[in-house]
């Protein structure tokens, strides 16, 4: 038999978040997004729909984007996690952040952390996406303000700049 959670409420989880090793005790049912926000204080990752649809909670786990509301923290034990807080270096925006800033790929900003994490992964997979490919790859990220037009423009601008600097495949890893 497996140990009952009534008798054994928590388990230790250790993840490397944005390059820093962090540990905390969690219940097995603790979602990764709550571990990040409530236990590690990384509130840049948002909880939107909480039903695995909207993508406001997208982070990278071992280099692959994940909806952190659709993963238990225990599943991430030992993993490398990247969140929106880890993108800027030395006060400089990541090129995708910069492009969202310049093209105003947001209005209220709630979806933006997840949108940017998904966009980075998109450009790593496909450095020169068509507009249709951008829209398809971002189907798991909902924006209720922009109508997506400026989000698409932001990704296009980021693709252009990352292509010029030759770092599309590695800049965001």
């Amino acid at each position: 038999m497996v140990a009952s959670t009534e008798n054994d409420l928590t388990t230790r989880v250790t993840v490397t978040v944005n390059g820093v090793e962090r540990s905390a005790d969690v219940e097995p049912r603790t979602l990764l997004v709550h571990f990040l926000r409530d236990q590690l204080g990384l509130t840049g990752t948002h909880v939107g729909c909480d039903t695995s649809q909207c993508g406001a909670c997208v982070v990278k786990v071992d280099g692959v984007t994940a909806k952190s509301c659709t993963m238990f923290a225990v599943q991430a034990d030992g993993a490398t996690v990247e969140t929106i807080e880890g993108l800027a270096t030395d006060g400089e925006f990541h090129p995708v952040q910069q492009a969202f800033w310049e093209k105003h790929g947001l209005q209220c900003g709630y979806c933006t952390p997840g949108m940017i994490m998904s966009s980075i992964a998109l450009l790593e997979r496909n450095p020169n996406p068509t507009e249709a490919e951008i829209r398809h790859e971002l189907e798991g990220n909902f924006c209720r303000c922009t109508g997506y037009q400026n989000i698409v423009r932001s990704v296009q601008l980021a693709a252009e700049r990352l292509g010029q600097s030759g770092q599309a495949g590695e800049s965001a890893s």
Partner: protein
Amino acid sequence: MIPTSFAYHQATSVADAVQILAENPDAKILAGGYSLIPAMKLRLAQPGVLVDLGKLDDLRGISRQADGVHIGAMATYDAIRDDPTIQELFPVLPSAIGYVGDQQVRAHGTWGGSLAHADPAADLTAVFLALEGTVHVVGAAGERDIAADDLFIDLWTTSLEPDEIITDLVLPIPAAGSVAGYKKYGHPASGYALVGVAVRLDLDGETVTNARVAITGATSKATRSAAAEAALTGAALTDEAIAAAASVITDGIEINGDAFASEEYRAHIAGVLLKQVIAAARG
């Protein structure tokens, strides 16, 4: 939303996972998690034990073997889509996978998990039927194979025993001249199939020697259309023959109607999709 409490077990082997399942009747397998975890958050599912297969990398392989292409049950949609053997032998799969969920679902979701979950609106259940797949399963009583035709029982219900785990999906190598395709008409908000149609046609020149047609989204489980298959088998692949098959595609099948789409509408769309799938598959 927070799921009910459960005990978490990270499986170290298939045998280990089977043992936990056999000993805990309220245990569930955790694969990609993109169906189960949302259901747990809504408390539609309240397993007492979760057995995570996430570290069983042996279940992620894709290889060509004597009896067909084996796809490990934990292979993600992305891994299947990007696999050269799959791209060469089953070009229908990268195309169909593009319809599945969203990018995060494709990055984490597994075909094995989707088959075991048997969501009536899943995409690749119908494709599995059309491609004449078989699942290899391991349980407390031993190993066995289940043909796609015998796997789906009803809404979210399969013929898997509670202590059985799918380890491999096996797809027979298509005959020369075989073509396959899948297309869905999804709900504009959720993306779930209102109707999806998967087809495999074995061709001798322009003559259909064998047809497999499967519908998803419109039925309680992915279902083959015996009427459409009969209309196509032996026929020359003319526009008339395809239209005849499309006109009978839902004959003998109970089609669902609901607030999103009526039974009549879904039946009509199934015929339209059959025509489009065959046209696209023939190139």
